[in-house]
C-alpha cells in the first residue's frame, strides 16, 4: 500500500459522536486525499491537501473537515457522525497534482455509524 497506513481500520460509533480517521504516509508526498467508497457511487473525493495546512474541498465535503499539521499525517474528522456517513474511507497520496501524477491508496477504514 505504498507506505500508507490508516487508523483505525474498523470503527463503530453512534450518531452524533465525533470521529477522527488518520492517514499516515512515509513517502513524503505533497498531496494527500480522502475518498469514500459506497455501493453504486464508486470512489468519491471528500477533501484533499496540497501541503501542510493547505486543504481544499472535494465532491462530497459536507459534514467532514480535515487537517494537515505535518507532511506525513492527514486527518479526517466527522464532527457529528450520521448514518449516511457509514462507508469505507480511503486515503491516497501523490507526489504532485499534474496531468500524469498517480494516486496510491491506503488499506481503508470501515466506519459504521449506528
Amino acid at each position, binding site marked *: 500500500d505504498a507506505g500508507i497506513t490508516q487508523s483505525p481500520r474498523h470503527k463503530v460509533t453512534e450518531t452524533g459522536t465525533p470521529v477522527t480517521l488518520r492517514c499516515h504516509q512515509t513517502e513524503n508526498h505533497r498531496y494527500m486525499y480522502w475518498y469514500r467508497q459506497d455501493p453504486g457511487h*464508486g470512489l468519491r473525493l471528500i477533501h484533499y491537501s496540497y501541503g501542510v495546512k493547505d486543504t481544499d474541498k472535494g465532491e462530497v465535503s459536507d459534514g467532514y473537515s480535515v487537517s494537515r499539521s505535518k507532511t506525513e499525517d492527514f486527518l479526517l474528522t466527522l464532527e457529528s457522525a450520521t448514518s449516511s456517513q457509514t462507508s469505507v474511507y480511503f486515503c491516497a497520496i501523490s507526489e504532485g497534482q499534474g*496531468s500524469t501524477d498517480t494516486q496510491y*491508496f491506503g488499506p*481503508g477504514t*470501515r466506519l459504521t455509524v449506528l
Partner: protein
Amino acid sequence: GESVGLHLPTLSVQEGDNSIINCAYSNSASDYFIWYKQESGKGPQFIIDIRSNMDKRQGQRVTVLLNKTVKHLSLQIAATQPGDSAVYFCAENMYEDSSYKLIFGSGTRLLVRP
C-alpha cells in the same frame, strides 16, 4: 469484501484464458488514465497507466489500450489466474476547477473459475 458495489458488471473467465475489461471515459481532454485493482478488504492498487499520446502500453501480463476516438479504455489480462479475481477500476485524470482530479469508473468484477 469492502463496499465495492452490489451491482457491478461481472466478467467470469476460465483460469488460463485471457480477460478483457472495458471502460468508457467522459472527457475527451483527459490525458492520463490509470487502471486499479481492488481485492476484497483492500484499497485500490495501481496496475498500469497510459498517457493520451499512446494507444497501447504493456506491463507484466497486462496491456492497456486507449481509443481516443470513442473515449474507450480496455485492460487485457493474459493467462488469467485465480489471484486476478478482484474489482477493476479505470480512472481518468481530468482538469477541472484549476486542478487535476481523478474520476473513477464504477468498476468491473472479475471472477476467475478454476
